[in-house]
């Protein structure tokens, strides 16, 4: 089959050329062109440059919120995911309740509820004043509680993707369930779900813009504040869009390189 195909390709050079064109990642070229054009405007147009430097001030907070929230979500997600597959029905049902609860409510609503209802309520129970927890911390708490539930489902799927035989082989060697999970099932499960976790990291970067509603000065909030006095809607929101697009593009390229390296290692 393969040989036949190659021979046809060789006898009709036009075909290879055309398939080559069809295979070329045009989308990537188009997006990088857009980014380049915008970059040129930012470099040469002082208005664009001003807005760019303004939004740039929010970049640090966006990255900080994303990285901290994502790391903590991984921990919460792992715990919830393990609870989700636990033998103990109490643990399992607690985990399922939590996950279903979170997944059944829009993210924006949860951000409000967690920041302005749950956190103050918990603070009050511990005798702390209402404003004891900063808005950035509330934003992180909200994102972690939300993403933990989504990431739990990723870990669950990963654990369930490992055949029952692996657990049995480990158990028959005398390992406890916890040992078998830790040394045999989880390492394989985590490797299987790395691409899915990468997608969630990108999603988290984008969803971090939602915490602008709390007044956290990440990129979106900085842009909104700037627009409210400059009224330069077009320039500001185009540049804000450009920021997110560039970040997600870089991140997905990094993740692809990482994945290819891991696959090469075997």
């Amino acid at each position, binding site marked *: 089959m393969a040989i036949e195909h190659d021979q046809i390709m060789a006898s009709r050079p036009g075909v290879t050329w055309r398939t080559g064109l069809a295979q070329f990642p045009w989308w990537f070229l188009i997006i990088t062109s857009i980014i380049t054009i915008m970059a040129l405007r930012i470099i040469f147009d002082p208005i664009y440059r001003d807005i760019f430097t303004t939004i740039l001030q929010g970049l640090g907070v966006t990255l900080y919120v994303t990285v901290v929230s994502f790391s903590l979500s991984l921990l919460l997600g792992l715990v919830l995911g393990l609870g989700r597959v636990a033998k103990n029905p109490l643990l399992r049902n607690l985990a399922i309740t939590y996950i279903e609860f979170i997944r059944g409510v829009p993210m924006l609503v949860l951000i409000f509820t967690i920041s302005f209802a749950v956190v103050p309520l918990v603070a009050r129970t511990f005798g702390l004043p209402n404003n004891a927890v900063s808005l950035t911390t509330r934003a992180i708490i909200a994102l972690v509680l939300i993403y933990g539930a989504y990431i739990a489902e990723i870990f669950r799927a990963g654990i369930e993707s490992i055949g029952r035989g692996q657990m049995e082989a*480990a158990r028959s060697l005398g390992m406890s369930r916890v040992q078998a999970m830790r040394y045999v099932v989880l390492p394989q499960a985590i490797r299987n779900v790395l691409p899915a976790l990468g997608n969630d990291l990108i999603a988290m970067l984008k969803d971090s813009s939602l915490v602008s509603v709390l007044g956290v000065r990440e990129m979106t909030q900085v842009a909104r504040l700037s627009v409210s006095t400059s009224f330069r809607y077009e320039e500001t929101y185009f540049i804000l869009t450009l920021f997110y697009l560039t970040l997600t593009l870089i991140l997905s390229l990094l993740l692809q390189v990482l994945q290819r390296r891991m696959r090469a290692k075997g």
Partner: protein
Amino acid sequence: MSQPANQPMILIENVSKYFGSFRALDRVNLRVEAGEVLMIIGPSGSGKSTLLRCINHLEVPDAGRIVVDGITVSNNEAHINAVRAEVGMVFQRFELFPHLTVLENICLAQQKVRRRSRQESEQIAWQLLEKVGIPEQAHKHPGQLSGGQQQRVAIARSLAMQPKIMLFDEPTSALDPEMIKEVLDVMLALAAEGMTMVVVSHEMGFARNAANRVVFMDQGRIIEQGPPEAIFGDPQHERTKLFLSRILH
């Protein structure tokens, strides 16, 4: 563990096992003496794997009693672990740990369960790799090995725990024909050393050369048992005859 001379290595008394309302094992009684090589044959779904898996508590019997080397297998976690430490198991599909090298596969449980040092466990692993004839594969991952090599690693991994009993569930039926012999040779050597073995397999060569006793199961019951010559040469029950006529062609 010191024990009376008449105590069998494995004692199975009136064991029944249900999956829902389906009876996979029906009041099975069986004794396996120390050093004995027992083969279990029977049609698909007759309960061979289930019986084997009850011995190391991968399946929990619904009724009856199983005693392994004097330890009654119960739901008590300590008893289960004590039994599993004495019983090695080899699976049809090898079930090596794909994320670990061959050497690490053989060392993991030694270190985590037996609490052996890295050095000691690796030394034992090397000896066993020599024994099963593939020391040169030690640093590869299971995915890079042939089926026969993988199964030999799986046997070495079990032996590293120094079990008194080895259970084999169709160890050669996932293998290409040219690899079956290399695995059977390892099993024959093990039998010759006096290992107590329970083997679910339809390999006639192994039955003739190594088995002390053959058990024929059907529909969750032991239909008949005896020395291989008797079971293969002169089966008493219709069902045994029918089954043997199918597998012996």
